[in-house]
């Protein structure tokens, strides 16, 4: 059936939880594009047929016309589905910059296509240049803080880190009292957790 494959692509998107990425499905994507090309070929041949019979494409309503309409609608439908697929993934990719920062972990990197990877890099660079212009890190304090300092517990060996004016050694399971803005990025990367003793 026309358009079935494109909707499978979207079904994949819908089946994943919101905010989660699935692996970029280049196989199905290419198949849909191929389908589009076939529709186009059929469309052109129907138009040619009508022209050969010296019929005006604008006004004739014969069987060839309706065949062409169906191909045209299927083409538009496929295009729409592909755009929706790209758009929804792009939205998720944008949100990654805010949630986990500049560096994407390997398992997420693998799910992106090449151009999506480039998109992320460029988007990230745009945000960075804006933030450096403002001289303000916009990605921290996403939730209004009650206290500028928090207690955290380190979940993974991070090593020596310089935070502001102090050098600090973040070893696993150690508990520290840090500035919230410093801790926030580590928490969202899953390297620390808030310690509620």
């Amino acid at each position: 059936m026309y358009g079935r494959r494109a909707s499978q692509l979207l079904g994949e998107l819908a089946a994943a939880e919101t905010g989660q990425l699935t692996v970029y499905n280049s196989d199905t994507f290419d198949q849909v594009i191929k389908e589009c090309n076939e529709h186009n070929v059929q469309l052109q041949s129907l138009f040619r047929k009508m022209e050969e019979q010296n019929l005006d494409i604008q006004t004739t309503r014969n069987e060839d016309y309706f065949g062409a309409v169906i191909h045209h609608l299927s083409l538009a439908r496929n295009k729409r589905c592909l755009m929706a697929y790209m758009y929804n993934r792009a939205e998720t990719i944008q949100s990654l910059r805010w949630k986990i920062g500049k560096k994407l972990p390997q398992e997420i990197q693998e799910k992106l296509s090449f151009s999506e990877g480039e998109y992320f890099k460029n988007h990230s660079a745009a945000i960075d240049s804006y933030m450096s212009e403002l001289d303000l890190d916009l990605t921290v304090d996403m939730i209004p803080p009650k206290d500028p300092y928090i207690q955290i517990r380190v979940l993974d060996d991070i090593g020596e880190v310089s935070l502001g004016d102090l050098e600090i050694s973040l070893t696993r399971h150690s508990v520290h009292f840090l500035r919230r803005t410093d801790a926030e990025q580590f928490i969202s990367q899953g390297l620390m957790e808030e310690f509620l003793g």
Partner: protein
Amino acid sequence: MEEEPMSVVFQVGANGVGLLDPGSETNNVEKGAKVDLPFWLAHDLYLRQATSINVPACFNQKTRKEIQADAACVDLRMRCPYFYELGCKTVPLVGDKSIGSFLLQAFSSRYKEVLSKSHSTPTTTASKFLPRLTKEETQLFEAAQSSMASFKKWRVGGSRLEKASILGKKRKTTLPIDPPSP
């Protein structure tokens, strides 16, 4: 939802689209052929007066009787996962005005059940009746549960900083440091 099959009758013939009609021997669809088309195609062809649309099976008399008898027990997802949305979009196409009130009646009698179950059912037994809900009802069900969960979290108070959910799926497997003593 746009993929839902609709039974339509072609008012015109169409060449080069034999794929749509599995019973057709040529590559064409004849005038008067009865074919199942996805909703998006059926809808656009209807607007061009190329097809007429039959009322989908999920709004037939049998379903209506079942809804009247005990709305909450009817498996609507099996009939159509987008029961309400399809219904709303079908009404202007088929000219059957009774669908509207039927949808309203079905929804209002099932809504109470969905809402009360979403708060009272433990996750283990929810699997019994969740498959009966349409997609729209499932969304309602989950919204009710998540709002309750957030309310509880807010009341207890707790860490508001969390790990990004996209990272949370895979846990790093670490070897146990202390082997269990025999």
